[in-house]
């Protein structure tokens, strides 16, 4: 119980620190939102227009007053409205977050689907052809930037083979099949960088566990090899894999920017970049807060899952 309370307090303190930091940083960065909003396309807005907009947006108030209002709002779950069009930020995040999560989950699913069997196969045939081939591909996957992968996938599957659209989005409720078609390329682009992570963790972990004395004991007791592998080696090797995957998923929350950009996937990361460019303070603050919250929750979830997978790690 103490552990849960401690973790909860830490999470709240983290969120408060992030909220304050992002507020301060945004106001320190040069670029007046009112000026930006009225200055697109090389047009010079009048001083009166900028001032009027600053008043409308509440930017004419002292910084401390803005900060207190902001903190007061987020404690009640109000993330404010966009400087761009006055739309509630919370509603927009609720709409976009599932799209980014879906992208991350799909990429993770593909990574596990490909990386785990490859890791097991490479470990069992250590030094063999499969091991060499998979390790080389893993190095390649890790070293190629995601925007290069994405562009190559578009070139191959969209422009040459014409199997899938170059990019875009259709809601699952509107058209499930096409939704999945749109999801494929961006998910694979992310997975290309994630598969090597899973592959290497599984391979290393299995090689380590294969040397354990209790594996030798299991074999000595007469257990067949598949049972030894599945019930003892693979299960035990999953703990570090889950930890690493969890951390990567958290990172991907804010790291799918390039993929969302390249494939025009209307997720949270793309919204964040656009909001930063346009100095849409409420949007940036809201998105960063939500990402921070999710990161904290994912870490907590990973800790708990880790405990379930490894009986030695149990928190009371």
């Amino acid at each position, binding site marked *: 119980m103490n552990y849960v309370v401690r973790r909860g307090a830490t999470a709240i303190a983290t969120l408060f620190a992030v909220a304050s930091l992002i507020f301060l940083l945004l106001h320190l960065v040069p670029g007046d939102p009112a000026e930006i909003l009225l200055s697109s396309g090389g*047009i*010079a807005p009048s001083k009166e227009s900028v001032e009027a907009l600053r008043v409308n947006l509440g930017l004419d108030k002292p910084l401390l007053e803005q900060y207190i209002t902001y903190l007061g709002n987020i404690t009640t779950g109000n993330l404010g409205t966009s400087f761009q069009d006055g739309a509630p930020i919370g509603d927009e995040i609720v709409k976009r977050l599932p799209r980014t999560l879906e992208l991350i989950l799909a990429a993770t699913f593909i990574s596990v689907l490909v990386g785990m069997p490859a890791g097991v196969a490479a470990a069992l045939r250590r030094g063999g052809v499969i091991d060499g081939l998979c390790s080389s591909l893993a190095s390649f996957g890790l070293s190629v930037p995601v925007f290069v992968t994405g562009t190559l996938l578009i070139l191959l599957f969209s422009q040459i083979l*014409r199997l899938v659209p170059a990019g875009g989005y259709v809601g699952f409720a509107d058209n*499930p*099949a096409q939704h999945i078609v749109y999801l494929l390329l961006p998910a694979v682009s992310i997975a290309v960088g994630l598969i090597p992570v899973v592959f290497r963790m599984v391979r290393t972990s299995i090689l380590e566990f294969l040397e354990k004395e209790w594996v030798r004991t299991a074999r000595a007791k007469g257990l067949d090899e598949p049972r030894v592998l599945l019930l003892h080696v693979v299960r035990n090797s999953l703990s570090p894999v889950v930890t690493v995957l969890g951390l990567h998923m958290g990172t991907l929350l804010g790291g799918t920017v390039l993929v969302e950009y390249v*494939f025009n996937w209307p997720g949270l990361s793309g919204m964040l970049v656009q909001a930063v460019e346009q*100095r849409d303070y409420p949007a940036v603050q809201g998105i960063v807060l939500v990402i921070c919250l999710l990161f904290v929750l994912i870490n907590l979830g990973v800790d708990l899952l880790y405990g379930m997978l490894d009986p030695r790690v149990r928190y009371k």
Partner: protein
Amino acid sequence: MIAKDSRRGFSFSRRGFLGALVIAGGLPVGIARAAAGAKPVRFGLSSFPPNLHPFEYTGTASLTVKLMLYRGLLSYAPDGTLRPELAQEWRQVDPVTYEFVLRENARFHDGTPVLAEDVKYSFELIADEKSTAHLRKDFQIVKTFEVFGERSLRIVLKQPSVTFPQVLAAGYAVVVSRRSAAPNFIGAGPFTLDNVERGSSVTVKAFPEFFRAGVPGPSAIHFIAMPDESLRIAALESGDVDIIEYVSTQYFDRLKNGADVGLESANGPFMYLLFNVQEGPFTDPRLRHAVACGIDRNAVNAAAFSGVGTPFDHLPVPPSPAYDAALVSERFGYDPARAKALLAEAGVGGGLVIELLSTSQYAQHNDTALVIQQNLAEIGINANLSLPDWATRVSRGNRGQYHLAVQGTAGAFNDPDAVSAYIEGGQVPSYTRPFGYNNARVNELLSAGRQEMDNAKRQKIYAEIDGLIVQDAPLLSLLWRPQAYGVRRSIRNFAPLPGFLSFQSALRLEDVTSA
């Protein structure tokens, strides 16, 4: 036919792929894409419109969509000449008075007729003291809006203005219903707003009661925000969209030579250099002249615009009967030796260090700055390059935090008076203007040029302004930049408007048809 066949092939193979997916995953059957030859048009925007407020300037992508929803008294024909829009006819009664008669069949999207009171309501919103309208300042010249009949309106100006009709034709001088208010203004454009997927797409559908017969051509236009240019190109080539905007010069040949796609472009925006003439080394005009002699415009064109720009060194005025660049013969052309001599004369022959401001956010600004830096190095000026994001660049420009800055923009209309935005003194400091520049004679001439109706006299006025700008050198024109659209060959009747009007090319979308 090629495009049509190609699109069929595309559609078929994707359906095949989807079929396999459905069989494999047991998913419900979906539609791969719209049928070939469908009436709706799909347009790839460079960004998602921040908002659709009809009077505010929020970028070209916004204007593109807004021109579908809203119209004003006047607009532009395909050749860039003024044409009546909601006004059926209009006339200039005397130098300060204009009268307009509205069309009998002009209707708002709620079905109500467009009346003179609606025009008055809209223009008063624009001119309001607290308005954030883009044209608020331009409307300050209006003395009165007088309704003298259900469909008749008289506008009286405080002083003559040759460009006032151009202001009324701008995409921001639109008419909204007086029974509507922000943010839900009701317009009278050829399309009505159908669906907005915030951050992703906007769909407009044809307004059957639009006043112009046979217009609009498309049954709907689906605007899809595609900030990544390579994705826009890929989407155009693979047939996912029919038209894309903001095609960089590096893609020109590829699109021109495409089997199913083509390129439509017009010289519109221009690139230029701005000096901070209030603080720093460039308060000395000799140093500005030295820079003018050190800039190789052809090198900028070759390196940053693939050689398809049009270098020029006169006032940034598109072809106009009121301006003749040939009337000024003395200019500071590319002459590195003279540049070095001018530097030596100014006492900095041993070297000069300056701050050159541009932005890394737009490749054309970034690449132009790199060439300028190289040019300056060759004459002995060491330029420290500052390439922040666009928002920071705007902020620094507005505050004069630079010595020399790279900028690109387009004027409001194809008239020499458009240069007032860049060289007229007494305006609020802006990143589009040379910081601190204010020449009383230039201001006087600009005002005279604005009020003069005779083109021969205007030519002389703008020639004198041109000469003064050559001497003062607060800014240096570099080149005209093509404003280009990628268009599938199945699309008919789309081409950008000429000159500064290229940002309003979306007006042509109402005439587009899909083969």
